């Protein structure tokens, strides 16, 4: 932090001249990249349709109110399905991610090649959005709740595995050392040395993921994989915006409720 003397008075500045120039140059590059990207997007946009957006929005909101509350009666089943997709998907993800996490953690992996395979599973699962998984599954095994459950499970495996193997790598090595010096087998070390240490973290990870999965399970129905998204899609396609607003209210209540439950249970465990 340089201090320059100007007219006999020391003036403090945050950066010296070179640092300032470098920062401005960084901003300049950022602005140029932004403008190039913006030009590209602007070129792909039909501005004619953009200008009446406020009118369209007003029209849409006008159609959404008042919400047709009687439609809610037909949504309970969809809501139940949505919760099931998230919960069962999370359960399947747990079953898959525990062994993969032990394969991926540096201190428990049987072989570096196994670790690489586990890493590829994690990257693949995490990079592909659950809606893309759902689209693939709907086209392979047909539309329905099952496709949604598997899509959510496949997307969650990477997330749960990544956080779990990081927790496994951070365990305190002393209990493990004590167990193996007492002659415990590899399985016993995992059961009595590692599992008790990572269990609270793992429970937290699962609840956190369940919360995220509730959010995603509200939309996998848009591509035919069951849940409230199916009704949302049907209502939008038939332009029943007063039903859409009812669905939106339900989704908000469900998501905020799930977040609350997940936070409460996590608070109770940890």
């Amino acid at each position: 932090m340089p201090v320059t003397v100007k007219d006999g008075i020391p003036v403090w500045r945050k950066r010296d001249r070179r640092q300032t120039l470098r920062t401005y140059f960084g901003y300049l590059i950022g602005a140029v990249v932004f403008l190039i990207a913006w030009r590209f997007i602007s070129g792909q946009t039909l501005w004619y349709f953009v200008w009446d957006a406020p009118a369209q929005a007003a029209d849409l909101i006008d159609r959404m109110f008042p919400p047709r509350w009687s439609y809610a009666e037909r949504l309970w089943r969809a809501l139940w399905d949505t919760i099931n997709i998230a919960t069962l998907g999370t359960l399947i993800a747990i079953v898959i991610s525990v062994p993969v996490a032990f394969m991926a953690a540096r201190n428990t992996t049987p072989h570096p090649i196994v670790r690489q395979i586990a890493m590829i599973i994690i990257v693949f699962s995490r990079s592909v959005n659950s809606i893309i998984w759902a689209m693939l599954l709907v086209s392979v095994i047909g539309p329905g709740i099952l496709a949604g459950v598997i899509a959510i499970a496949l997307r969650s495996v990477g997330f749960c595995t990544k956080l779990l193997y990081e927790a496994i790598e951070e365990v305190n090595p002393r209990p493990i050392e004590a167990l193996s010096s007492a002659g415990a087998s590899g399985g016993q070390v995992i059961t009595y040395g590692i599992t008790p240490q990572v269990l609270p973290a793992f429970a937290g990870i699962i609840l956190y993921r369940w919360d995220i999965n509730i959010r995603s399970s509200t939309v996998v129905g848009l591509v035919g994989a069951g849940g409230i998204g199916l009704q949302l899609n049907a209502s939008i396609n038939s332009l029943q915006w007063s039903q859409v607003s009812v669905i939106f209210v339900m989704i908000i209540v469900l998501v905020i409720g799930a977040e609350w439950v997940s936070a409460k249970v996590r608070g109770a465990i940890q």
Partner: protein
Amino acid sequence: MSAVAAARVRPLWRPKPMIRNPLLRYGLLFGGAAYLYFAISTIEVNWNRLILGMDRAQVLFAGFARPDFVSRWQPIQIGILESVAMTVVAGALGIALAIPFAFGAARNIAPLPVYLFCRAFIAVSRSFQEIVIAIFFVVMVGFGPLAGVLTLAFGTIGFMGKLLSEDIEDIEPTQLEAIRATGGSWFQQMGYGVVPQIMPRFIGLSVYRIDINFRESSVIGIVGAGGIGGALNTSIARYEFGTTAAIILLIVALVYAGEYASGVIRKRVQ
């Protein structure tokens, strides 16, 4: 007699149960089992369709074994470029808009009405998945990447607003007080009392969110909001699984590259 003696010689040790109250323990177990039974029994599985799907699964896997980058290269290229451009523009726009919301949603510096408004806005933005918001913006501004940019920017406001406002609430208040005591204006208080404390977190969150925006930009195209999702959707609908595999591999590669870059940046900042 002998059984008692044997028990005395080798006392059986069991790990302590996680839930001490047996009634709660078995109650939860029973409740969980009952829920699972009902949840699974409401999944309607069409076995004929499932068996039919096995052939298609083979085609899908064959597609992944031989991804076809060539025959649909034109739409893939435009889609990927659109996704990247959307990520850049929405990142800049969303982060810039998220800053005032983050300050407004921090209870320690915002007045109550502003706080409530910002919190409500953030809650709505976070409750809906990007794809649902994308439907809205597509209705408003028409098909194309502009709808995607607005969607991602909206999602960014919710995400950054929530996490950043929590950081602002957690700052050390003494520094802020010191600047207030020396007569700093409101902007000076924020600039020298709050911003330096949240800057590392802010950069980390921004990079993380840009990462998320790219992942999301690969799906919102399904509803017509630009990006690679449109091409992906078309390829799945046409059962051109070679092209599907190519697109998914490109997404995975780009997400992985982005994650690597964001990891490097975050490590340097913290």
